[in-house]
């Protein structure tokens, strides 16, 4: 049962990663008993599982994911929302209003085109576009803060192991940070300098997602920037 690369080595689509009794995890595929990479990224061998962490990818909706979306269209019975995915999402008016009557309620007064919303994906399968919900505490219209866009595969790195990275970012910058699984991150702090610092840090994480000891380096960077400003 040979493996053909070392952990964290860079592989390109079509590279033969392993042969024999392995299971193909994300960004890999199996043919016969051979496992190949399907995206450009870093290969990880964990026990019997082979996976590739992609360097660049797009967001595919998943039920119960938290996403940040932009209202693209106000329809008669709901909204069309751009969630940075190949499919546009739907938010139904009945999800927001208890007794929705199209004759009476003006939907654009609740969410208008261009508004940003924080929502959860209620249902999604390959045959239909995803349907969103905002019926949970904390969800709904975003009124303040800044949005950072990063590639969705780097989202786990921004959160870190058991939230280590995101907690550090929140503590060091004093900002409220909400991570959408679709690659959009909301940074909301009292002062624009804090927000700017958090954004720089997030971009640094995206750029250097594949390197180790990143949490410490980002902490150091934030502290240095702070000192310089004083």
């Amino acid at each position: 049962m040979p493996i053909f690369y070392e952990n964290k080595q860079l592989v390109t689509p079509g590279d033969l990663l392993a042969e024999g009794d392995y299971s193909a995890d994300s960004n890999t595929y199996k043919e016969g008993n051979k496992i190949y990479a399907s995206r450009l990224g870093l290969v990880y061998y964990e026990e019997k599982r082979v996976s590739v962490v992609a360097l660049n990818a797009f967001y595919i909706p998943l039920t119960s994911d938290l996403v940040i979306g932009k209202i693209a269209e106000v329809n008669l019975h709901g909204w069309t929302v751009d969630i940075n995915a190949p499919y546009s999402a739907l938010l139904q008016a009945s999800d927001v209003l208890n007794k929705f009557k199209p004759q009476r309620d003006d939907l654009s007064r609740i969410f208008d085109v261009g508004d940003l919303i924080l929502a959860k994906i209620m249902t999604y399968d390959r045959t239909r576009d995803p349907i969103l919900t905002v019926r949970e505490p904390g969800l709904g219209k975003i009124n303040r803060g800044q949005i950072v866009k990063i590639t969705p595969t780097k989202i786990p790195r921004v959160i870190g192991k058991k939230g280590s990275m995101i907690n550090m970012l929140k503590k060091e910058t004093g900002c409220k940070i909400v991570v959408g699984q679709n690659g959009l991150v909301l940074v909301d702090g009292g002062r624009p300098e804090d927000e700017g610092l958090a954004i720089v840090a997030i971009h640094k994480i995206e750029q250097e997602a594949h390197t180790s000891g990143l949490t410490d380096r980002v902490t150091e960077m934030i502290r240095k920037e702070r000192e310089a400003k004083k």
Partner: protein
Amino acid sequence: MNQSTIKLIDENGIRKDGRKLDELRPIKITVGVLSNADGSAYIEQGKNKILAAVYGPREVHPRHLALPDRALLRCRYHMAPFSVEERKPPAPSRRELELSKVIREALEPTIFLEQYPRTSIDLFVEVLQADGGTRCAGAIVASLALADAGIPMRDLVVACASGKVDGQIVLDLNDIEDKEGEADVPVAFAPNLNTITLLQMDGLLTIEEFEKALNLAIEGCRRIHALQREALKSKYVAVKEEAEVE
């Protein structure tokens, strides 16, 4: 395609541009050159200069073209008016439509289209300067642009032409060899899958000559594949080195 009046290969077996019979033109590939596209790549192969850009997967417009069970791959091969010696009208010609189809079909089997139903992947191959073998070079960059866009693929696609010039089988024909030579065999190849995804022939070859030409073209593909992988990796290695310097 009868007896050519110009001598394309001299008595030492050296071609007009100084190459040996089985030698490729110098190749330079860069990945991720355009910031507005989801993925992009650029190749210089001899005098060929070709740019490829990928958008998607995204919603299909017009909507009725969407396929219920897989993504729609659309490809546009286009030559810039200044890409050839005499100005080429910018409207797509019969030949460009054919090459669009041929490049699309060369790439289609390597992409996991069935994972993204009702979407489209739009591919643009723009020839800035042409010197023969643009369909092959176009397929090489198109495949790289797809990989750069993060679209899941079974394999990269490499392409290379071989042909018969002055009675000899040669690799990677340029414009004059293509026009004055006896035959041209473009091959697109998925090296890890060991599958041919495009095979065309223009001109006359015996069965033995054809086999020799095909094997030579595949050999050329394997050599280009190494360059292709390097190009794809180098975009990322630059970032890694930057991180280590700090």
